[in-house]
């Protein structure tokens, strides 16, 4: 079973905090891969928040293709934070040419465009690059978006981190999400690694989504070009977030009503019965099944966690004003909080099966809402 850790901190932190936590939870994952998502960036990227960052893994050829694709469009490198490893990788980690992390200046003719349009174009470029690199595996592109870095690699999280020297790489972020992978696919495909990302939304989970096929069919038939991939059955969680925010215009509290709606009997006694009934009917194709703890990050840097209908994969949340962590395991959370806040200087709790818990970017408190609570309907 995969392990999940995420934190949101007033002060930018090194992703090593998350990696160390994964290491504490090592008993639970088999070290077959690690994924990192950083946003609300600090360090060198602090000043570069509006510039899109391209994250991915490239071969030498791939870098050439990338440049020859982006340059003519007018993208200029603003800042390069790529990791080029000289030494041989530890056992189980493939040799790569370049872990690319590079911020670009937008082409001049994009200047007048709305952010809406920009992010659409960025996504289309990411998809195109992904496509171009698919055959010879010269380019694996995770994201191309402002204020977001993704890093994923096969192998034990600690070994990978040491190999990439993340400790000294100078990466820092206020929101970090990390997954230590338990491999359930036969051949490890990096596109199947969590966290998944689309237009400022990232999410990761630690279970199986047994309702994957009908959900995939629904998303694929929305006519939205970004709803592709699905090398992993968990990618749909990210896309459902995206669909909810962008197509339905619904806020976070509705996510759980979509993926694990209340029972009909409970809807009958809910103050927003009429609305919830409609939502359940129309979004029936997005109902997930199977055990899952879902941790996500929204475009406004809100960190959120929900669990499956039966809480088969529980999660735990803790911290104090200024720093909060979400984790799939008690020991992982304990490590992060003690490390950051010191012993006995924090509180934690385990959300219930109907709960959505989240911490907004002000990091003042953990907010919790139950599915039985009245909803503020968007107008």
């Amino acid at each position, binding site marked *: 079973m995969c392990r999940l850790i995420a934190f949101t901190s007033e002060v930018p932190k090194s992703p090593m905090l998350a990696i160390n936590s994964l290491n504490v939870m090592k008993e639970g994952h088999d070290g077959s891969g690690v994924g990192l998502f950083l946003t609300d960036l600090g360090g060198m990227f602090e000043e570069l928040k509006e510039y899109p960052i391209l994250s991915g893994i490239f071969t030498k050829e791939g870098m050439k293709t990338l440049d020859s694709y982006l340059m003519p469009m007018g993208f200029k490198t603003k800042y390069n934070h790529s990791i080029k490893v000289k030494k041989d990788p530890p056992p189980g980690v493939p040799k790569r040419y370049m872990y690319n992390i590079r911020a670009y200046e937008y082409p001049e003719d994009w200047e007048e465009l709305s952010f809406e349009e920009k992010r659409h174009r960025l996504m289309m470029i990411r998809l195109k690059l992904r496509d171009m690199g698919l055959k010879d595996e010269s380019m694996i592109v995770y994201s191309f978006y402002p204020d977001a870095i993704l890093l994923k690699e096969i192998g034990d999280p600690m070994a990978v981190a040491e190999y990439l020297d993340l400790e000294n790489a100078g990466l820092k972020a206020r929101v970090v999400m990390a997954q230590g992978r338990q491999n359930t696919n036969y051949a490890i495909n990096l596109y199947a690694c969590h966290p998944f990302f689309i237009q400022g939304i990232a999410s990761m989970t630690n279970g*199986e989504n*047994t309702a994957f*096929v009908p959900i995939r069919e629904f998303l694929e038939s929305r*006519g939205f070009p970004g709803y592709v991939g699905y090398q992993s059955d968990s990618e749909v969680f990210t896309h459902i977030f995206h669909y909810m925010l962008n197509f339905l215009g619904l806020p976070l509290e509705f996510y759980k009503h979509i993926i694990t709606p209340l029972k009909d009997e409970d809807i009958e006694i809910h103050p927003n019965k009429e609305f919830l009934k409609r*939502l359940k009917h129309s979004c029936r194709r997005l109902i997930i099944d199977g055990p899952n703890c879902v941790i996500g990050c929204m475009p406004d840097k809100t960190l959120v966690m929900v669990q499956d209908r039966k809480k088969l994969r529980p999660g735990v949340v803790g911290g104090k004003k200024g720093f909060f962590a979400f984790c799939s395991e008690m020991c992982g959370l304990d490590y992060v909080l003690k490390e950051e806040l010191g012993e006995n200087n924090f509180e934690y709790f385990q959300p219930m099966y109907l709960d959505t818990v989240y911490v907004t970017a002000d990091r003042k408190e953990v907010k919790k809402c139950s599915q039985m609570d009245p909803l503020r309907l968007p107008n």
Partner: protein
Amino acid sequence: MFSNGPITPSQLSLKDLPWLIYWDKEKCQLCGRCVAACPVRAIELGTFRKRIVETPINNKKAHSNVYKVFYGIKQKADPAHACIGCGLCSKVCPNDAIIPYHNEEVDKLRFHINLGGQPRRRGGRRNDPGTLLDRIKFIRISMLTDPALDAGRHEFELRTLLGRVLPPEENLRLYKEEGWTPPVREIYPLVIGGMSFGALSPNMWEGLVMGVTYLNEELGMPVRMCTGEGGCPPRLLRSRFLKYIILQIASGYFGWDEIIHAIPEMKEDPCAIEIKYGQGAKPGDGGLLMWYKVNKLIAAIRGVPPRVNLPSPPTHQTKYSIEESVAKMIQSMYMAWGFRVPVYPKISGTSTALAVLNNLTRNPYAAALSIDGEDGGTGAAYNVSMDHMGHPIASNVRDCYLNLVKLGKQNEIPIFGAGGIGKRGNLAANAAALIMLGASGVQVGKYIMQAAAGCVGSESDRCNICNIGQCPKGITSQDPRIYRRLDPEKVAERLVDVFMAFDTELKKIVAPLGRSTSLPIGMSDALGIDDYHAAERLKIKYVV
């Protein structure tokens, strides 16, 4: 016949019949019950002459013959009275002296069953015992990474939706604007398919309605039952139980005068309106209630004179083109109940189902599509229609579902599959397979008749005389002397048994697949079949 007498082409011997009677003279007490009970008068009291040759041992006396007469049961060999193997004789015999058995030779009766130029008509089922649905296996068992669920202890949500489900964006917009939204019913995915009042006896109907009510009100299972074409008893129309009923309108419009007149007095809306365009047992042919069954009561409910044949036209008379007719009918039915009741068409399985479906996707009122495959059963049809016409249900449902997926409208128009589900007894497995192929629910008729009322009909042409009103079990008869055999309370009890057992079995299927939060409609990754071509055709896994 005498050995030197003439013989006519259709003069058959017992050996030419599909069903033969074994009668045991030793056990028979000549009570005559079997003869009285036989629905087709296949047996009669026989007077047999027997000669005994008495040969003295020591030749002192001359040889002599003793002629004796004895009585017993004689089977008739003429086609009009051929035994149907129903076994009622055996059931009523106090001494187990009589039993029918299948002739191992292929019968010759089939070549003579059209005497008078009238092809064979019968009730029952397609005479093909196999079904592809039985070969579909559920292969995606949750192991290790996602634990299988506990069918006995976990909570399951297995309801389905009947009604036009709007795309999420549209639905939320209408909520805001307080616009009209098509009615949607949350129902149990196993629906009792259309069997008309008229085809079924009053006792059978009463039993079914009682059972359905119990399931809803005592067990909280929102089971629905369709009336078939034949109207609905007036008291039921005016009762609160109408909400459990799907009213069917078909091309004969039987019973609709009564229904329309009852609308102002209805306490509840019906669950839905099913417009029948076709049925699996006799695709492209109208309903048929033969005169034997049109007694006073049936005639009154249907609004026709008693004792006439009631063949419905193959098509709705309003039909100019299917698009127009469907649109018109759907709209008028919506209008009749103030746009509060879902209205959907039922068609027989056909290679043109996609065209119908595409039309429906463009009709914002169409609430569902019900498809009745070739294995659908009936109260009466021409044998040729039953055995040879129609389309298998699995690929029909699958094609329609995948077509909706292409349009992004999967489950917006729920597809209901019917015809031969559970024909070999595997009701839950067959239903689950169809659901995972893309059906939102299934409709069953014959299984209910067999399990809840003890129908003895089978795919090897046993009984199947539902058309002539002589049903040995009183299920499809309108003769009170016959249908009083069937106790409505017991039918209700058995119906409840059937649904409870089905529910457990369905959970036993979905729980190991890791599904419980919603009905696994279209979960095709869970399905496999050991036939490569079938797997390709249905887009499921080929497993051996």
